[in-house]
């Protein structure tokens, strides 16, 4: 015996199928997930940038202190600009997520030069001009870091930060 086939239910929304409804949900979901990921990546990138900027400020301050102190055995009233590099590396070497750090030792008033591409920063160490001391007796040391630190989060170039931090400090001097 064959059982009777039940009659097909009429479509309550003629012209609209189940496929279009799920497609709409998919489009809404992709829009929401895209916006959510954008905000999330932006927030994480901003946090990482803050960490890198704080590391940069701390590093250039440590470098300035080291550069302003005379080298052992040298003239006690000379600065030791090259002492800045190990001090900066000790602070920023690990906290900047593998950012390449280039160094240049420039004179007062000289430009720091154009930094490299993404993931590279340039550190410029040199004497700074003290406006209250035109004779240059009480010299100051300036350390500046410019460039685009590496962002370990893959943001596909949407969030590419740059930093530009500088500190100045008086050199340590000795009277005879």
């Amino acid at each position, binding site marked *: 015996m064959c059982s009777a086939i039940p009659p097909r239910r009429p479509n309550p929304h003629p012209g609209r199928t189940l496929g279009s409804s799920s497609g709409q949900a998919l489009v809404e979901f992709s829009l929401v997930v895209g916006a959510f990921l954008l905000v999330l990546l932006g927030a994480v990138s901003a946090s990482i940038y803050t960490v890198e*900027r704080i590391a940069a400020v701390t590093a250039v301050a440590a470098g300035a202190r080291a550069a302003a102190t005379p080298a052992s055995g040298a003239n006690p009233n000379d600065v030791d600009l090259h002492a800045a590099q190990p001090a900066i590396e000790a602070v920023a070497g690990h906290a900047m997520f593998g950012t390449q750090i280039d160094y240049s030792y420039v004179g007062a008033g000289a430009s720091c030069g154009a930094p490299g591409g993404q993931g590279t920063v340039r550190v410029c160490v040199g004497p700074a001009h003290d406006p209250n001391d035109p004779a240059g007796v*009480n010299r100051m040391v300036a350390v500046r870091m410019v460039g685009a630190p590496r962002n370990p989060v893959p943001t596909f170039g949407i969030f590419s930060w740059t930093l530009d931090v500088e500190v100045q400090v008086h050199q340590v001097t000795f009277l005879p």
Partner: protein
Amino acid sequence: MSARRGQALIETAITLPVMLILLLGFLAALVAIEAQVELDTATSLAAASCAAARANGVQCQQWANETYQDTLRHYTYLRPGPLRNCDTQPQVSCQGSATLLYQNTPMAFVIPTNPTLTSTASAAGSPYRSR
């Protein structure tokens, strides 16, 4: 259909500003942290400069002020305030302050005021330095 569209519009209108305020508030907190670190650094270097100056109060205060102002002038969102108590040696304890200018950033939308940040730093001069 139009009722559902209206509901979605209202939900978006409520959610979007809340999300925006949360995001800007988060960024404002990060900016405040950065500014505090920059002020701490400038105050610390000022105290170090004061300790490195020759043994008279005038040069100590002058060197500290120059270091403090020259370091902070680089940051446009910080207006340096006075630097106090950088006048005693060999133990120096400087107090710096600065105004964080949120009005110069998009975060003014969520933080309409410009808070004042303070910092204290100490440094000791070397007893072996000739003066």
